[in-house]
């Protein structure tokens, strides 16, 4: 019984302790000129879907949920956002060459087609980020069109 108590206290102290470790927050007031929405003529419904389902991890501005402030959740999110932005940052879209854009659009199509994006761990909490079958099809069609026009 005593051992359990000690473990519980150690865990509690550790949990409180890690709350003081700072994390970098992915937030910015400015939308750069190279943003995907600014350089492409994106229909409003598709704009909304991309914003809600993709921009949290694939842009310079994340709409953080309240629990982001609790560790170790914050680390988990930070990691995902870092990785997501390295793969694709919608804010920096127009700085890519035509070859790179085509390549990225192809990957976007494949990821949505295969149901790999948005991530399950993300849509589990962000229910509105999930694509219905019709929505996925609509987005894929539009992105394909954009890819063919490059």
């Amino acid at each position, binding site marked *: 019984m005593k051992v359990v108590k000690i473990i519980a206290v150690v865990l509690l102290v550790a949990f409180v302790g890690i709350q003081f470790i700072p994390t970098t927050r992915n937030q910015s007031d400015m939308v750069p000129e190279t943003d995907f929405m600014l350089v492409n003529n994106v229909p409003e419904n598709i704009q909304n879907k991309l914003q809600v389902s993709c921009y949290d991890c694939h842009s310079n501005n994340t709409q953080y949920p309240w629990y982001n402030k609790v560790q170790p959740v914050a680390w988990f999110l930070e990691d995902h956002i870092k990785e997501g932005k390295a793969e694709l940052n919608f804010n920096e879209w127009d700085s890519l060459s035509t*070859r790179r854009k085509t*390549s990225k659009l192809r990957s976007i199509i494949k990821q949505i087609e*295969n149901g790999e994006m948005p991530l399950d761990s993300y849509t589990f909490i962000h229910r509105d980020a999930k694509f219905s079958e019709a929505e996925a099809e609509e987005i894929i069609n539009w992105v394909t069109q954009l890819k063919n026009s490059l």
Partner: protein
Amino acid sequence: MKKLKMSIATMLLLAVSFINAQEKEKMKMDHKMDHGKMMDMNSVAKAEAILNDYFSLKNALVADDTKKAAQEGTKLVASLKAFDTSSYTKEQQEELVDIIEDATEHAEHIAESAIDHQREHFKTLSKDITDMVAITGTKNTLYQQFCPMYDKGSAWLSTNNEIRNPYYGSRMLKCGKVQKTIQ
């Protein structure tokens, strides 16, 4: 008299060191020129190294061997990074840098994905490598082959004119045709 001797000696010393310095400069120039030639040879060899890794990767996909394909993907990342564009014209350099950047990303994904995903990336990678060869050329005869079924039609490169399909492997080994011969 002593003064005169001293100044002659000084002049001589100066002359010797000037000549020496000039010689050295010349040698350096020669060396540089050699180096320039070597770079040319190097970039050709490095383009061939990229191609070799690409073909090993293609063969692994033909054999449905995910693990081998991943390893070849890692090798390809290294040979892409080692590529030196400095012996090409400015325009070619720009395009090559763009191609290498794109190809590297696809090779990286191939190094860490399951086979379906590897094949998706192999499609774009093949386009990049084909565009690279159009600039760098190659000492071997290559065949651009095409499968109309995979993802609305997909091409790849091979050193052999017989079809071995990297997109389907054993499921449809001989699906495709030679589209173009590259020499």
